[in-house]
Protein backbone atom coordinates (compact mmCIF):
# COMPACT_ATOMS: atom_id res chain seq x y z
CA UNK A 1 0.00 0.00 0.00
CA UNK A 2 1.32 3.39 -0.91
CA UNK A 3 1.82 5.91 1.83
CA UNK A 4 0.28 9.31 1.58
CA UNK A 5 2.98 11.66 0.40
CA UNK A 6 0.88 14.75 1.10
CA UNK A 7 -0.90 15.28 4.36
CA UNK A 8 -2.86 18.01 6.13
CA UNK A 9 -3.10 17.24 9.84
CA UNK A 10 -4.16 18.85 13.08
CA UNK A 11 -1.61 16.77 14.98
CA UNK A 12 2.06 17.63 15.70
CA UNK A 13 4.30 16.72 12.75
CA UNK A 14 7.03 14.13 13.26
CA UNK A 15 9.86 15.12 10.93
CA UNK A 16 11.25 11.61 10.52
CA UNK A 17 7.89 10.26 9.38
CA UNK A 18 7.95 12.70 6.46
CA UNK A 19 11.62 12.11 5.69
CA UNK A 20 11.16 8.33 5.65
CA UNK A 21 8.75 8.57 2.72
CA UNK A 22 11.44 9.85 0.35
CA UNK A 23 14.22 7.46 1.37
CA UNK A 24 15.55 5.35 -1.46
CA UNK A 25 18.60 3.25 -2.23
CA UNK A 26 19.21 5.64 -5.08
CA UNK A 27 19.05 8.83 -3.04
CA UNK A 28 22.36 10.35 -2.08
CA UNK A 29 20.85 13.52 -0.68
CA UNK A 30 17.74 14.30 1.32
CA UNK A 31 16.86 17.89 2.10
CA UNK A 32 14.26 18.71 4.70
CA UNK A 33 12.60 22.06 5.22
CA UNK A 34 10.99 22.60 8.61
CA UNK A 35 8.86 25.70 8.90
CA UNK A 36 8.43 26.69 12.52
CA UNK A 37 6.45 29.41 14.26
CA UNK A 38 8.73 32.35 14.91
CA UNK A 39 8.11 34.57 17.90
CA UNK A 40 9.28 37.92 16.52
CA UNK A 41 8.51 39.49 13.15
CA UNK A 42 9.95 42.98 12.80
CA UNK A 43 9.96 43.40 16.55
CA UNK A 44 6.33 42.39 16.95
CA UNK A 45 5.65 39.47 19.26
CA UNK A 46 3.44 36.63 18.12
CA UNK A 47 1.58 34.82 20.93
CA UNK A 48 0.38 31.93 18.80
CA UNK A 49 -0.97 31.13 15.36
CA UNK A 50 -3.92 29.40 13.85
CA UNK A 51 -3.81 27.68 10.47
CA UNK A 52 -6.83 26.84 8.39
CA UNK A 53 -6.86 24.83 5.16
CA UNK A 54 -9.14 23.72 2.38
CA UNK A 55 -7.83 20.17 2.65
CA UNK A 56 -8.96 18.40 -0.53
CA UNK A 57 -7.78 21.27 -2.71
CA UNK A 58 -4.57 21.68 -0.70
CA UNK A 59 -3.71 18.02 -1.34
CA UNK A 60 -4.42 18.51 -5.06
CA UNK A 61 -2.10 21.50 -5.10
CA UNK A 62 0.66 19.52 -3.33
CA UNK A 63 0.27 16.91 -6.08
CA UNK A 64 0.45 19.69 -8.66
CA UNK A 65 3.73 20.87 -7.13
CA UNK A 66 5.04 17.29 -7.21
CA UNK A 67 4.14 17.10 -10.90
CA UNK A 68 5.96 20.34 -11.66
CA UNK A 69 9.02 19.10 -9.77
CA UNK A 70 9.07 15.73 -11.52
CA UNK A 71 8.96 17.53 -14.86
CA UNK A 72 11.98 19.62 -13.92
CA UNK A 73 13.87 16.93 -11.97
CA UNK A 74 12.56 13.43 -12.80
CA UNK A 75 14.57 11.61 -10.13
CA UNK A 76 13.31 13.69 -7.23
CA UNK A 77 10.91 12.27 -4.63
CA UNK A 78 8.93 14.61 -2.41
CA UNK A 79 6.65 14.41 0.62
CA UNK A 80 4.91 17.29 2.41
CA UNK A 81 2.96 17.49 5.66
CA UNK A 82 1.27 20.71 6.76
CA UNK A 83 -0.27 21.20 10.15
CA UNK A 84 -3.47 23.16 10.81
CA UNK A 85 -5.18 24.40 13.95
CA UNK A 86 -3.57 26.26 16.82
CA UNK A 87 0.24 26.36 16.86
CA UNK A 88 2.51 27.74 19.55
CA UNK A 89 5.93 29.40 19.15
CA UNK A 90 8.51 26.89 17.80
CA UNK A 91 5.83 24.42 16.70
CA UNK A 92 6.34 22.91 13.27
CA UNK A 93 3.87 24.19 10.66
CA UNK A 94 5.22 22.40 7.61
CA UNK A 95 7.78 19.76 6.70
CA UNK A 96 8.99 19.24 3.13
CA UNK A 97 11.27 16.28 2.44
CA UNK A 98 12.99 15.89 -0.92
CA UNK A 99 15.38 13.17 -2.03
CA UNK A 100 17.57 13.10 -5.09
CA UNK A 101 20.68 11.26 -6.26
CA UNK A 102 22.48 14.62 -6.28
CA UNK A 103 22.51 17.26 -3.62
CA UNK A 104 22.24 20.43 -5.72
CA UNK A 105 18.86 19.32 -7.03
CA UNK A 106 17.66 18.28 -3.58
CA UNK A 107 18.16 21.88 -2.40
CA UNK A 108 16.64 23.42 -5.53
CA UNK A 109 13.56 21.21 -5.60
CA UNK A 110 12.92 21.74 -1.90
CA UNK A 111 13.08 25.52 -2.21
CA UNK A 112 10.88 25.35 -5.30
CA UNK A 113 8.29 23.43 -3.27
CA UNK A 114 8.07 25.95 -0.43
CA UNK A 115 7.90 28.85 -2.89
CA UNK A 116 5.01 27.17 -4.72
CA UNK A 117 3.22 26.26 -1.49
CA UNK A 118 3.11 29.95 -0.66
CA UNK A 119 1.64 30.66 -4.09
CA UNK A 120 -0.98 28.02 -4.76
CA UNK A 121 -1.87 25.91 -1.72
CA UNK A 122 -5.07 27.07 0.03
CA UNK A 123 -3.87 27.37 3.61
CA UNK A 124 -4.33 30.43 5.78
CA UNK A 125 -2.58 31.68 8.85
CA UNK A 126 -4.04 33.87 11.55
CA UNK A 127 -1.66 35.74 13.84
CA UNK A 128 -2.50 36.39 17.46
CA UNK A 129 -0.67 39.33 19.03
CA UNK A 130 -1.17 41.01 22.39
CA UNK A 131 -3.09 43.82 20.72
CA UNK A 132 -5.09 42.01 18.08
CA UNK A 133 -5.28 39.38 15.38
CA UNK A 134 -5.02 39.23 11.59
CA UNK A 135 -5.25 36.76 8.77
CA UNK A 136 -1.97 37.05 6.87
CA UNK A 137 -1.96 36.96 3.09
CA UNK A 138 1.16 36.55 1.03
CA UNK A 139 -0.45 35.46 -2.18
CA UNK A 140 -1.18 38.78 -3.81
CA UNK A 141 1.07 41.35 -2.31
CA UNK A 142 2.68 40.04 0.81
CA UNK A 143 0.58 42.18 3.12
CA UNK A 144 -2.38 41.06 5.16
CA UNK A 145 -5.76 41.29 3.60
CA UNK A 146 -7.90 43.91 5.28
CA UNK A 147 -9.43 42.25 8.32
CA UNK A 148 -8.95 43.03 11.97
CA UNK A 149 -6.27 45.44 13.08
CA UNK A 150 -3.40 45.61 13.30
CA UNK A 151 -2.19 45.34 9.75
CA UNK A 152 1.23 43.86 9.73
CA UNK A 153 3.39 42.37 7.07
CA UNK A 154 4.26 38.96 8.16
CA UNK A 155 5.46 35.56 7.30
CA UNK A 156 6.72 33.46 10.12
CA UNK A 157 9.35 31.83 7.99
CA UNK A 158 9.79 33.79 4.84
Amino acid at each position, binding site marked *: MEENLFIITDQPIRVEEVTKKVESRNAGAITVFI*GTVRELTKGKKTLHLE*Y*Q*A*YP*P*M*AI*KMFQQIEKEIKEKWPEVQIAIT*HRIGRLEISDI*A*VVIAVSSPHRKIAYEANEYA*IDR*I*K*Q*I*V*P*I*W*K*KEFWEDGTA*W*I*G*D*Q*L*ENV*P*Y*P*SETPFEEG*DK*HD
Partner: protein
Amino acid sequence: MINILLFAQLQEAAGHSQVTMDASEVTVQQVKEWLEKQYTLTSLHQTMTAVNEEFATDDTIVKSGDTVALIPPISGG
Protein backbone atom coordinates in the same frame (compact mmCIF):
# COMPACT_ATOMS: atom_id res chain seq x y z
CA MET B 1 -27.95 24.49 -5.69
CA ILE B 2 -24.37 25.69 -5.52
CA ASN B 3 -22.13 24.98 -2.53
CA ILE B 4 -19.97 27.88 -1.45
CA LEU B 5 -17.00 27.54 0.90
CA LEU B 6 -15.62 30.49 2.84
CA PHE B 7 -12.24 30.57 4.55
CA ALA B 8 -10.17 32.74 6.86
CA GLN B 9 -11.33 36.36 7.11
CA LEU B 10 -14.25 35.76 4.72
CA GLN B 11 -15.53 32.96 6.93
CA GLU B 12 -15.33 35.23 9.96
CA ALA B 13 -16.93 38.18 8.16
CA ALA B 14 -19.83 36.08 6.83
CA GLY B 15 -20.19 34.08 10.02
CA HIS B 16 -20.35 30.86 7.98
CA SER B 17 -17.83 28.39 6.59
CA GLN B 18 -20.31 27.02 4.07
CA VAL B 19 -23.39 28.51 2.42
CA THR B 20 -25.58 27.48 -0.49
CA MET B 21 -26.88 29.57 -3.37
CA ASP B 22 -30.07 28.53 -5.04
CA ALA B 23 -29.12 28.65 -8.73
CA SER B 24 -28.69 26.17 -11.56
CA GLU B 25 -26.11 27.94 -13.71
CA VAL B 26 -24.23 31.14 -12.95
CA THR B 27 -20.76 32.61 -13.35
CA VAL B 28 -18.25 32.88 -10.54
CA GLN B 29 -18.72 36.63 -10.88
CA GLN B 30 -22.42 36.24 -10.11
CA VAL B 31 -21.65 34.05 -7.10
CA LYS B 32 -19.39 36.79 -5.78
CA GLU B 33 -22.03 39.46 -6.28
CA TRP B 34 -24.62 37.34 -4.53
CA LEU B 35 -22.26 36.78 -1.59
CA GLU B 36 -21.43 40.46 -1.29
CA LYS B 37 -25.11 41.35 -1.05
CA GLN B 38 -26.23 38.40 1.05
CA TYR B 39 -23.47 38.61 3.65
CA THR B 40 -22.42 42.26 3.30
CA LEU B 41 -18.87 41.19 2.50
CA THR B 42 -16.36 43.75 1.36
CA SER B 43 -15.65 43.73 -2.35
CA LEU B 44 -14.71 40.24 -3.52
CA HIS B 45 -13.65 41.28 -7.00
CA GLN B 46 -9.98 40.59 -6.32
CA THR B 47 -10.61 37.37 -4.43
CA MET B 48 -9.45 34.17 -6.09
CA THR B 49 -11.82 31.27 -6.43
CA ALA B 50 -11.78 27.56 -7.07
CA VAL B 51 -14.54 25.53 -8.64
CA ASN B 52 -14.51 21.88 -7.62
CA GLU B 53 -11.01 22.32 -6.19
CA GLU B 54 -9.46 23.85 -9.31
CA PHE B 55 -8.58 27.53 -9.60
CA ALA B 56 -11.21 29.39 -11.61
CA THR B 57 -11.78 32.83 -13.11
CA ASP B 58 -14.71 35.20 -12.72
CA ASP B 59 -16.32 34.00 -15.95
CA THR B 60 -16.08 30.29 -15.11
CA ILE B 61 -19.54 28.72 -15.31
CA VAL B 62 -20.83 27.10 -12.14
CA LYS B 63 -23.65 24.58 -12.21
CA SER B 64 -25.90 23.11 -9.58
CA GLY B 65 -23.95 20.62 -7.48
CA ASP B 66 -20.64 22.39 -8.02
CA THR B 67 -18.57 23.69 -5.13
CA VAL B 68 -17.20 27.21 -5.29
CA ALA B 69 -14.46 28.09 -2.80
CA LEU B 70 -13.50 31.69 -2.12
CA ILE B 71 -9.76 31.81 -1.64
CA PRO B 72 -8.52 34.92 0.16
CA PRO B 73 -4.76 35.56 -0.01
CA ILE B 74 -3.09 32.41 1.24
CA SER B 75 -0.34 32.20 3.83
CA GLY B 76 0.61 28.57 4.22
CA GLY B 77 4.10 27.18 4.60
